[in-house]
Structure formats: C-alpha cells, structure tokens
C-alpha cells in the first residue's frame, strides 16, 4: 500500500486530503510511522524522529494513528487479494505476497492480474497500492518498491505496476543499491561500501570468500544468492505468530524500579490478553530494556509450561528487571512472549513424584539466562480461582472494552487505562504524562 496509514487517515477524514500528513508519535521521542506523499516532498520519511519531521515540514498535520483501524483495512485488503489467489502471505499490515502461478490460466498474464488487483483495491477501498511481480519473492518486493509513486515527481512512471519478466531479473536487480536487498541493514551496507561494493551488481561480482569475510559466512552465502536473483523461499499462506510483545517508550528516562514493575504488569496483561484472544500460550518471557544511551538489552526466562496469564508473565518480567541496573535510566521497556503453542493443547507436562524429599513435586522455572533467573520460583500455573477470574475478566472486556477491568495496580486517579497497541506505539504523545503511579495525569487517563 502506498503511504498506508496516512492514506487511511485521509480516506476517513476528507479534510486531510492533499495536505502534508504525518502519522506517528507526537511526543519528543516519537517517530514517523507513515507520511503522505505531500509530506515526503519535504523530505519526511518513515522511521524519522517526529521532531525532525516537524522541522522539515512545519505545516504538516500530525495524527497519532489508529492501529485497530489499520488492521481492519488490512483485513479488507486481504479479502480482495484472496479473490486472485488462495496463496497469500501477509508480511505486514500493508504488504503481502501473492503467488499467482495457479491463477494465470484463469485470470490472464501477470501484468493483467497486477493491474486488476490495483484497480480493485482502488475502486473498492479508495486506496492506492503498488504491485511488483517477479519469479522470486524478494524481487517481487523490490519491484513493488520500484512501482511506488515517485517522490516529488522524479523517477520512472510505472502506473503502480512493475513486472520483472523472466530473464530480466539481473538487468533489474544489478543497478540497485545494496541496501535495497532484504537483510542488508545500515551496518552491513557501510561495511560493503568500504570494500567498494555499492550496487547489487557489485555484490554479484564479488569474490565469495571476500564477501564472507565482510558479512560473515551465512549472511555471505545468502546475499550472494540474492545478488544473483536466487531466492528459494516460497509464498507461505499462514505466517504463524511467533511472538507477542508490547513495548513502551518513556518521555523521560525512568529509574523508579517499582513503577517499572507496574509498567511490566500492564504490558504483561496486554500481552496475555492478546495471547488468549489468539488461543496461544508461550513458554519464554523476554524483557527488553533500552537505556537512555540507546544501549538495548534483552533477557529471557523459559518456563516449563506455556503461559497465558498476565500476572505470571509479569512476575517473570519483574524478576528479569531485577537483573538490570535501572539507575542508568530506562528509555524503553518491552515484555514479549515467545515459544508459542496452541493454548490447551500442550506441550503438556508430565508431573513427577519428588523421590528425593518424599513430597509431590513442584516444577521450577529454568532460567534461560543465568542472571535473569527469578530469585524465587514463579508458579508455573495460576490457581484455579485465578483462572476463573481471568475468564471473567476476558468476558467483561469482551463486552465493555479493554479498560473496563484490570489489575488494581494499574489503576490511576481517573480510572483504568487499558494498555492497547495504539498507545505509545510510535512514542509517547504530548502532553507528557507523568509516569509515576498516582502522579497527576492531564491527558490519556480514563479512556
């Protein structure tokens, strides 16, 4: 999708159309999630700090973004895609791979299908998208980037469709800069440029041993393949959820360990709710901490059983927090759960008799990282009463919304504020909320 979030905002609010529009965090530490082409003309780009974007384009309209609305639009988009092929792999809210191999006999040659997809999305949703096609996945993605509307009228006109015909792959690929390749981040690109590699063609011509010495063995082999247009990955219909996480960036660095523990409880509650909605549970709890100096650390602990309970996830998270020196000032905190399994279907844990002590055994979580090991064992399972309470909480939230009920520790003066994915997604909003429990909150409370 082209400028997806911004386009959805403009679609829903005609006043925003034709104006420089920026979706993202509006606070001091916010980042740009999406911006309209009008804003791009001023040099605004995704992932840019919002403060920089504001300087580049002082007239831009900032909106905070509505994740749930984008999800809804994304679902509608997928329904359109599925009219063209059953083999659809969504890779983000606004990007998907479609394998149309089986559709060609039915619907016509690839350029016709691409144009039909684009026209259908435009006609039915009022949104514009770019379609790239190729014989392999990563080339199709590159083609879709190349098909996007040029910023400021420069670049080739593609009408939003670019098909790399079989045989033309290298002619399309080799002139592109190396950082266009999936897997080449800024650091890798810098190292490659230092050895004189600027384009993907340079990469393809590079001695494999030299390449490996620059980027490492496995990345070297992978990049060498990509540079020759080789990509063995197929379009996978169901991308399984591999992790569920929640992070918060704070307007000022936080050093209050107790407050951070409360923040962990809120995030764990949100993660657990999403796990249960997806009928998933996870064994590994990860805590991500970014300090004021941007150094980022993750520590994890693996429980013998899969968890989907907010309080238990929070207890693991809090134990992990104890292994950090929060006195350094925490800029960002995140709680994630991985090692996911379908809820209720195991892996079940066969309990053992405790033959050493003569008492029935109690399972103890094992620390994935030694320092992150909880000081006291966290129970692997909520009590029966807690499980019943949780089911009731889920039912109440289902009916009255996510803020209706939750842990008392998260109560604020003006009521409960549900941790939702929309919140703080691209940095905290202004005016700055006071992160301390009980602190005066002039905005954001009682939603």
């Amino acid at each position: 999708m082209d400028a997806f979030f911004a386009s959805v905002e403009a679609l829903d609010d005609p006043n925003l159309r034709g104006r420089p529009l920026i979706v993202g965090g509006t606070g001091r530490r916010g980042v740009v999630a999406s911006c309209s082409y009008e804003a791009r003309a001023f040099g605004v780009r995704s992932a840019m700090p919002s403060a920089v974007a504001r300087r580049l384009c002082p007239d831009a309209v900032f909106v905070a973004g509505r994740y749930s609305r984008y999800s809804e639009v994304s679902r509608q988009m997928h329904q359109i895609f599925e009219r063209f092929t059953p083999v659809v792999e969504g890779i983000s809210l606004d990007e998907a791979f479609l394998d149309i191999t089986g559709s060609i006999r039915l619907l016509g040659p690839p350029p016709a299908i691409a144009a039909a997809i684009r026209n259908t999305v435009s006609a039915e949703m009022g949104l514009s998208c770019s379609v790239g096609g190729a014989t392999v996945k990563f080339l199709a993605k590159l083609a879709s980037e190349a098909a996007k509307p040029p910023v400021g009228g420069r670049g080739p006109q593609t009408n939003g469709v670019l098909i790399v015909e079989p045989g033309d792959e290298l002619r399309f690929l080799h002139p592109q800069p190396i950082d266009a390749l999936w897997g080449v981040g800024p650091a890798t690109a810098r190292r490659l440029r230092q050895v004189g590699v600027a384009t993907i063609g340079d990469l393809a011509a590079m001695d494999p041993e030299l390449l490996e010495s620059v980027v490492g063995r496995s990345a070297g082999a992978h990049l060498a393949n990509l540079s020759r247009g080789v990509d063995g990955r197929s379009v996978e219909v169901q991308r399984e959820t591999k992790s569920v996480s929640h992070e918060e960036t704070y307007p000022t660095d936080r050093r209050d360990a107790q407050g951070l523990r409360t923040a962990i409880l809120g995030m764990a509650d949100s993660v657990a709710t999403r796990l249960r909605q997806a009928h998933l549970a996870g064994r590994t709890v990860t805590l991500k901490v970014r300090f004021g100096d941007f150094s980022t650390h993750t520590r994890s602990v693996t429980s013998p059983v899969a968890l989907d309970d907010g309080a238990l996830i929070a207890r693991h998270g809090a134990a992990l927090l104890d292994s950090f020196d929060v006195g350094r000032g925490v800029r960002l905190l995140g709680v994630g759960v991985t090692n996911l399994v379908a809820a209720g279907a195991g892996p079940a844990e066969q309990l053992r008799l405790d033959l050493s002590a003569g008492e029935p055994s109690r399972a103890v979580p094992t620390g994935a990282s030694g320092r992150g090991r909880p000081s006291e064992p966290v129970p692997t399972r909520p009590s029966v009463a807690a499980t019943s309470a949780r089911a009731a909480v889920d039912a109440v939230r289902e009916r009255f919304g996510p803020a209706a009920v939750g842990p008392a520790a998260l109560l604020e003066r003006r009521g409960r504020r549900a941790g939702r994915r929309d919140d703080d997604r691209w940095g905290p909003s202004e005016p700055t909320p006071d992160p301390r429990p009980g602190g005066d909150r002039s905005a954001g409370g009682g939603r």
Partner: protein
Amino acid sequence: MPILGGVRLSVSGDALEVTGTDLDLTITVSTTVSGSGDGVVVAPGRLLTDIVRALEPGAVSLEADDEELRIASGRSHFTVRTHPSADFPRLPVPTGDSVALEAAGLTEALRQVTRAASSEESRPILTGVLMAAEDGGLRLVATDSYRLAVRDLPGVGVLGEGQKVLVPSRALNELLRLLGSADGQVSLRLGAHDATFGIGPGGPDAGITLTTRLIEGEFPNYKALIPANYPNRLIVAREALLDAVRRVKLLARDATTPVRIALRPNGIELTVITTDWGTATEDVDAKYEGAEITVAFNPNFLIEGVEAVTGDEVALDTLDALKPATLRPIDSDAYLYLLMPVRVS
C-alpha cells in the same frame, strides 16, 4: 565380551544344563537327555538356537571336542566353532536357605509391579523392584517417578523382619516370561549380592534357575508419596474404562498428548485434544463422589495402571489435577498404583 554371546552346555550322565549370562543375569535350564559321555562346551547361543529351531522334527545329536560342536539331525549336519569353555564366567550362586513362594501369586504380583519400574539406566535404583518384609508378608514396590506400584503378598514370609532387597526389574520380567502360567512353587535364595529364583517341580536339577545381581543403594522413601486420604473417589467398570481410553488414545499420536478425564457425578468424559489431528471424546458411566474436576494423564500410564488392577471395577482416587492419583481394586488393599497427572495449559 564375545564369550557372553555363548551358551554353556554341560552334560553329566543324562542331565543337560544350559546356561547363558550377561554377568548381571544368569539363566540355567536343566533337562534330561540321552547322554553318552560327560563334558562341557560353549557355543554361540544365537546360532545354536537358529540351527536347532530350523531342524526337522526328531532327535538331535550334539557332539563336541575342544574346537567344534557338531550338530546332526536326520540328513542335516552342522559344524560350529566353539568358545574355550574355561573362559565362560562361573558366577556365584547364593547358597543360603531356599524359601518357597506360590508361583501364581508371585506372577500376578510381578505383573502388577514391574510395569512401574524405570527402564532408564541413568537412575539404576529406579530400574529395580523393592522386595521388602512388611507386616509379616512380602511387599513389592517399583517407581519410575511418574507412577508407583505397591503390591502386598500377605503371609509370604520369605524375608526376615526388616530385610529388603532391590531386584532388577529386567530380571523379574525374564522370570515372568519363564513362569508363564506355571502353577506350583518358585524357590528363592538370597545372597549378599545376588538372588536366585528356581522354577520347576524338582528344584534346580530339573528346571530353570535365574540368578540376578541385586541393585545396591537406597530405594526412595515411597511411603511418604502416598496420600493418606483422598476427597474424590471414582468407581468405574475396568474393561469399559480400558476400552474407552484405548479408543480416545488413537488421537494421541505422540508420547506427550494426555487424556483428560472430566469427573462428574454420573460418569466421566474422556477427551484427547491435539492441534494436529483433532479431538476424541467418550463418556463412560461411573460412580463418582467428590469435586467436579478434570485431571489429565499419560494414556499409556493410565492403561497400564487400570490393567494391573484386579476385579471388574477399579477405584480412582484423586486430590486435584496436579497431585498424585491412585488406582486400586475396590475390594482389596493389596495393590495400589499411584499416578502423577499431566499438567495441561
């Protein structure tokens, strides 16, 4: 040790003694033959078995010298290289007093208990079956840490008060195979490090002896693991429960998928849920008194426990979904099969 692949044949008069050993376990079978000269030979056991089994029905003659064993029957002739008979280990046989046990009772007790022993050599103690004097009788106990089986043989005073030995379950399973459905008596002699079981009417000279090394070490304090009382009791027809578990278990395609038992006043519901294959449920009529709970078990452990209980009905006692449950006959305290549940998310 190649010699352990051999069997020792020893003829004395008309008595043939055939012995095989792996150093831990030694089995000797005695039988009567038509002997024409005393002697000893050690021949490859597997090969000898294969040959004799393949021969036409009828008499077999064996003739040995220092280097080879000649086997003949009808028009078949085999010459087999032998092992030096002096190399065959002669293991000590306990010489203590022999005590007699009822074969049928011992067979039943062993069947009920050896199934709970561990087959993992990493914890040798748990591969054994504890035989202990208890209240003037004999008690057999085994556990692999997931379940625990206890069987009392009242009035069987083969051990002195306070005496206990730990017998490898592997040896007892061999003993079970040798016992088959034999009636009569089994003799037991205990030594400091070995035990010998004798089967057959005429004692060791016309029957089978099995000598096993005992396991050294302290058996876990199993008595502390058995809950004193249970709030929930289920009584269910044994065969109906077995059939139902075997059916729902069809969905449990891997070793870790449990069967869930929902305990309700008028019966139980068995469920197997898998993400990959689907679900199975079955209701079984039963009498139940206690809290309505659901408890999950490894279906194989459950089946092995229910099978081991004698009688038409079996009692399942539970505390809650995470504490040990027990299976036992409804009319006897002689057997108990304690089973740890599977914790399900």
